[in-house]
């Protein structure tokens, strides 16, 4: 029924293609936006003719299989964390996470709530934080440009990191998600 083994580890051998590949990846970021909370509303303007994000080659993809970037926005409850994990693991490597908004990053104004995560990167590797409550579209675009430059520099390898310390992440995840009914590997 479900997949039952890890995808083989990415090889870190340098290739001549890497520069080209990173350029390409940086210039065509396909986003699947996981708008759990208030943040999602700030993504819509990016399509509009005012902040036209397609000029950076950023496009929305409705299915995780074809996406590169996962945007986690708004406060992240335990319940939603489960779904976010599955979506993230269904994205194919290389993949990046862009955490949008204070609540996502450190619980924000819900820091003392009984079901909002305070420290996202215990559970998922975040490549770029966009702070603010809520960040304006400009801020998001800024975050994207940051992500792009990271990719170009070949330093946006949170996915690799996630794969390497998977046990650590799983442990944290299972600590907060009591009824862990996900398959062990969602790839």
């Amino acid at each position, binding site marked *: 029924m479900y997949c039952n083994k890890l995808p083989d580890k990415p090889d870190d051998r340098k290739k001549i293609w890497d520069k080209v590949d990173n350029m390409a990846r940086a210039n065509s970021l396909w986003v699947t936006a996981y708008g759990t909370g208030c943040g999602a509303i700030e993504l819509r303007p990016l399509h509009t003719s005012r902040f036209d994000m397609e000029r950076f080659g950023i496009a929305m993809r409705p299915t995780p299989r074809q996406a590169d970037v996962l945007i986690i926005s708004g406060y992240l409850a*335990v*319940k939603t964390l*489960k779904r976010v994990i599955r979506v993230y693991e269904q994205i194919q490597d290389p993949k990046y996470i862009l955490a949008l908004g204070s609540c996502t*990053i*450190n*619980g924000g104004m819900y*820091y*003392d*709530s*009984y*079901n*909002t*995560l*305070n*420290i996202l*990167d*215990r559970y998922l*590797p*975040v*490549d770029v*934080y966009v702070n603010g409550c809520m960040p304006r579209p400009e801020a998001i675009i800024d975050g994207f440009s*940051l992500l792009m430059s*990271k990719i170009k*520099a070949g*330093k946006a*390898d*949170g996915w690799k*990191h996630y794969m390497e*310390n998977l046990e*650590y*992440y799983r442990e944290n995840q299972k*600590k*907060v*998600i*009591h*009824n862990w009914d996900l398959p062990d590997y969602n790839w």
Partner: protein
Amino acid sequence: MDKNLQRIISESSFESDTIREDEGYLHVRVSRVHVLELLLSAKQRFDMETLQLISVVDRIEDAVFQLTWILEDSGGTSVFMISADYPRENCTVPTIGDIWPTAILFERELHEMYGIDFPGNPRQNEDFLLEDWRELPPMRRDFDTLEYSLRTYGERRKRTHTDPREYIADSIDEWDTPVPMKDFER
């Protein structure tokens, strides 16, 4: 206030002190033994068709939960609210799911959030919002959410600089691999 609401109390066989009354609005407090009887008569004789809400106030000082049933008649012209106190400790309240099926849902929520037990409610043990919650019900006032939050979800490292520019500057330095938080926790 209209006849209908007036008659509800006047014809009821037990005493009840009116908290507030207004045009088409009546809020009474009764002792909890009479609640069911009053609700029934309100539904059957005075056509209080809709149950709008069951609300709870955790009056921890008096060690009671104050439950309030908010009813409305079919015309939507008059609202009738009944309040009653129940002891907090393993508090049980009779279910009214068979009178207003809506109540089944409300009571599920109250059961999850306050731990109030509604014997006879078929679905009260299903998850309402939380999935598999194991602690004290989170909405009770004796549940310390901050303590729980810090205990369970940890605390984000406080910023070291107060000057935004510097902070952003060195946060930008942290490009390379996001180190797992275990290295930061102290």
